[in-house]
């Protein structure tokens, strides 16, 4: 695995004070916040910044990390081939107090997990501390179809264990997750006992997975509602029509386009959105598609339409 330079992630040097760390983090967190950032890799940068901040703002973790960085510099580890040396954290103690906020480690790198995940646990064990394990948070992206119909998915999680040589070793475990039908974006799935192990014989925490819906080629999801653009011909829009529309649960339904429909008109199919017992709606946004005027017959028809509607001026409101 790669040795992470947390100081360069925050753009500071080793002599930075606690206040410098805080200022650098806040500045970068504003720059790369997914709601405001224009940078393409904002989400990844935000994760790196959060991880660096988790280590450098904590005196104990920072001191241990600094000592490790010195050993690495002396030992000359090749790039991308880092393994923490046995006993690297001797003399340092990490702990996550009961009021330190959510344990976001599920999002952090393998480097972070192998150093601090296990060390936090041992720190807690040494202090004879008894508490239920922390809950963990992660996100799961599923297709719209799986959100509607339910599915079973395998997810891979990182965890740390001590190997035969007493070194923290990186382990992956696979969990089979049953996704109930009708999930909407932002809803959480809770996996009992899959969070951090308990301290002093107490039960493990839970894992919360936040549901995200993958982009779909036909539908767009907004909270519990689903949107689809429905192209219609000028004739269908003007005279009204029955048109066939695919629905995300599979199959198709007949929909009535009312006469005198305009582009952008929203048709609602009630209860065909996401959300199980309190479902949202499926909205069809009308878009008028013009038949090409390349064939002679079509050209003639357009000319006839122009004659028949000679008094119609779509630019009247422009005052010309």
């Amino acid at each position, binding site marked *: 695995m790669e040795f992470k330079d947390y100081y360069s992630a925050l753009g500071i040097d080793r002599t930075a004070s606690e206040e410098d760390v805080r200022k650098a*983090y*806040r500045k970068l*967190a504003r720059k790369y916040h997914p*709601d*405001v950032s224009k940078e393409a890799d904002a989400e990844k940068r935000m994760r790196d910044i*959060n991880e660096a*901040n988790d280590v450098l703002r904590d005196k104990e973790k920072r001191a241990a990390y600094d000592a490790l960085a010195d050993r690495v510099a002396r030992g000359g580890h090749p790039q991308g081939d880092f393994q923490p040396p046995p006993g690297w954290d001797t003399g340092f103690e990490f702990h*996550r107090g*009961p*009021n*330190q*906020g*959510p*344990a*976001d480690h599920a999002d952090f790198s393998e480097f972070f997990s192998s150093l601090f995940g296990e060390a936090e646990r041992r720190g807690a064990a040494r202090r004879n501390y008894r508490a*239920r394990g*922390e*809950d963990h*948070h992660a996100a799961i992206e599923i297709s719209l179809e799986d959100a509607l119909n339910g599915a079973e998915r*395998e997810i891979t999680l990182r965890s740390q264990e001590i190997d035969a040589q007493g070194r923290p070793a990186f382990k992956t*475990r*696979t*969990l*089979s*997750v*049953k*996704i*109930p039908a009708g*999930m909407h974006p*932002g*809803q*959480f*799935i*809770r*996996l*009992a*006992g*899959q969070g951090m192990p308990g301290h002093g014989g107490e039960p493990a*925490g*839970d*894992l*919360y997975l*936040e549901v995200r819906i993958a982009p779909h080629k036909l539908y*767009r999801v*907004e909270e519990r509602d689903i*949107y689809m653009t429905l192209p219609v011909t000028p004739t269908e829009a003007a005279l009204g029509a029955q048109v066939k529309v695919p629905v995300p649960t599979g199959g198709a339904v007949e929909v009535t386009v009312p006469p005198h429909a305009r582009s952008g008109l929203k048709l609602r199919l009630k209860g065909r959105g996401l959300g*199980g*017992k*309190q479902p949202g709606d499926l909205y069809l*946004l009308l878009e008028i598609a013009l038949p090409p005027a390349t064939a002679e017959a079509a050209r003639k028809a357009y000319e006839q339409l122009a004659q028949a509607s000679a008094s119609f001026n779509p630019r009247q409101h422009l005052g010309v």
Partner: protein
Amino acid sequence: MATVSVTTAISASQPLAASELAHACGADTEWVVQLVEVGIVQVTTTEAPPERWQFSSADLQCALEARRLERDFGVGLDAAALILDLQHEVRRLKAVIRAHGLR
């Protein structure tokens, strides 16, 4: 070999208790009471004792975000409530822009 785990979707029929919401955020129940007071999370009745409160996925999302704002930026809960409202509004407006094909 995959381990099969017990999964529950947080929903109206399976809400979170105040203590569970607190634990998920690495906080205590007293903190959840403060969230209710500033309106970051919603309860149907504040007269009922906290043990009877019930929270949704949206509440968990807001509570986690408020906890991070508190921890990383040192903001008070009143300011966190305003930031969350603005964030919600930005996301709503961005969705409207996308719906009109403008971005």
